[in-house]
């Protein structure tokens, strides 16, 4: 079996496993579903108070992305912390399967759980804010939602790498969640941000995923945004891979007790 095919098998089976693991916590599932109600309400209030340029569906999906962001930012780091607490991180490193593949599968599972937040928001939007998804936009919407999951996963992968290296990285995650909501344009369009913030937002794959998603609500395939999102996702995946490997290497050589 080639390394790539072995890695893919490990990755896909791990994603299923971690989804199963995450689904065994009813409280987390409930919160992930209910939290978007708050996000959707806030987003609609901001939308009403603002210029009114965004449609109800755009606002709802933006709120869904906020829910996904929150789940990924806290979830990816939280899962690493849980592995450490359960003494599993060192077992994962001591196994022959490649460590970054295992960590990446965790973050993809967390992003898929974040997709539940998106579904929750769409449901709240439909019942409370009359945000309807019409048949013709469904294909573009489905593809761009998958793109959002991908973009969030790779950012989560980088966050997870930081959590492998740094024991108490949650303060970092907490500090960046709200700025990332703004920067990635899930709440308001990037064009509404000040100049320097707009430059920063171009470094996030989620910005382009959100752009593509917004375009999809008008049945438009934003090829530029999709391409930019894929390219940045690849860059983040590479960064995450290097980061996880570096954390594992430094833990083995420095014995800094990150893993145990």
């Amino acid at each position, binding site marked *: 079996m080639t390394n790539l095919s072995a890695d893919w098998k490990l990755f896909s089976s791990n994603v299923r496993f971690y989804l199963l693991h995450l689904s065994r916590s009813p409280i987390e599932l409930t919160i992930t579903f209910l939290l978007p109600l708050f996000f959707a309400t806030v987003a609609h209030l901001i939308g009403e108070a603002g210029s009114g340029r965004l449609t109800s569906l755009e606002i709802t999906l933006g709120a869904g992305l906020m829910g996904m962001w929150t789940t990924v930012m806290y979830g990816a780091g939280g899962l690493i912390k849980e592995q450490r607490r359960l003494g*599993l991180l060192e077992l994962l490193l001591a196994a022959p399967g490649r460590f970054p593949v295992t960590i990446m599968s965790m973050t993809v599972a967390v992003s898929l759980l974040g997709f539940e937040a998106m579904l929750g928001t769409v449901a709240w939007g439909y019942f409370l804010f009359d945000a309807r998804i019409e048949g013709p936009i469904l294909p573009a919407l489905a593809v761009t939602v998958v793109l959002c999951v991908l973009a969030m996963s790779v950012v989560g992968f980088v966050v997870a790498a930081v959590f492998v290296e740094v024991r108490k990285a949650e303060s970092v995650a907490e500090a960046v969640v709200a700025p990332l909501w703004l920067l990635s344009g899930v709440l308001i369009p990037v064009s509404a941000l000040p100049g320097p913030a707009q430059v920063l937002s171009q470094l996030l794959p989620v910005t382009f995923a959100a752009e593509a998603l917004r375009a999809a609500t008008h049945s438009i395939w934003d090829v530029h945004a999709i391409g930019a999102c894929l390219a940045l996702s690849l860059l983040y995946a590479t960064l995450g891979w290097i980061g996880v490997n570096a954390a594992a290497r430094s833990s083995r050589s420095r014995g800094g007790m990150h893993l145990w």
Partner: protein
Amino acid sequence: MSAIVMNDVRREFDVATGSVWRMNRRIRKFEALRGVTLNVARGELFGLLGPNGAGKTTTIKILTTLLVPTSGEVYLNGLDAVRSPHQVRSRIGYVFGGDKGLYDRLSARDNLRYFSNLYRISPVEQRKRINELLEMMNLLDRQNDRVETFSRGMKQRLHIARGLLHDPDIIYLDEPTNGLDPLAARDVRAIVRNLKNSGKTILLTTHYMFEAEDLCDRLAVIADGRIIAEGTSKELGALANAGSVVRAEIIGGAQALCRNLEDRIDVVNCHLEPLGDRELLTIRFAAHAGIEVPRLVREAVAADNGAQLLDLQLREPTLEDKYVTLVSQSRDKESA
């Protein structure tokens, strides 16, 4: 051929002291292993004993490729564990004691399935192997129950099953009976014995001396990062120069009595502990102390004002006595 070879392995850690804000932060070196050399033969059950902080965990982390030594060589079944950790990992199994190391919200079978994937075991082989191990560990009837509902003993058996999934040649058992009740510990010891009989090379660390004596072919005692003795239990006794042990029950004994006894050249170690309305004095003599040991103790107690001897028993040294003697001698040397 040796299954486990460690040649002059050293490991240093950086330890930070002070604080950046007070401008007195310092990094000092702490040497956890100071030239450890070990040879474990294939199929041998080897015990590594030592007090807390002696270097056992660091040794295990190096042998499981989780830590690289600062210097020295490590070979596992002829493979360089420092340069080729990935090759080595599929041939070693690592089991530690306690509640950790399992996904407790998932079932025993799900846990084993997950680790089988990590060890790249094919789905067909997985099913067969997981069934075998669940049966061997007597967990078949609870295979679909969440691990969080398991007793400590069941978790430990599941741990061992996890460590054996890929049928490793070398198994590290890090305090596998730690915190188990006597019956659960007996079950684990029976499993370890079966593994040894099936030809596996096992390195066991434990704080229970009777367990080490019962299970291990050979033992090593590690203290302050060095192997201070190695051999069979009998050979350790000779190395420790361990002689008779006196167990004396006294009334009114003080630590001064213990210190006076310890000052004698033929006394290795003396320990006084309260025992209800009296004190228990345990005196470990060196082998050259001879047969006059009971008389020496009687005289020492009589010379101590206020101490009264109630009972005195003489016995041969156990592995625990030999271990205490070796570690005490090592500490005396270190402090000297």
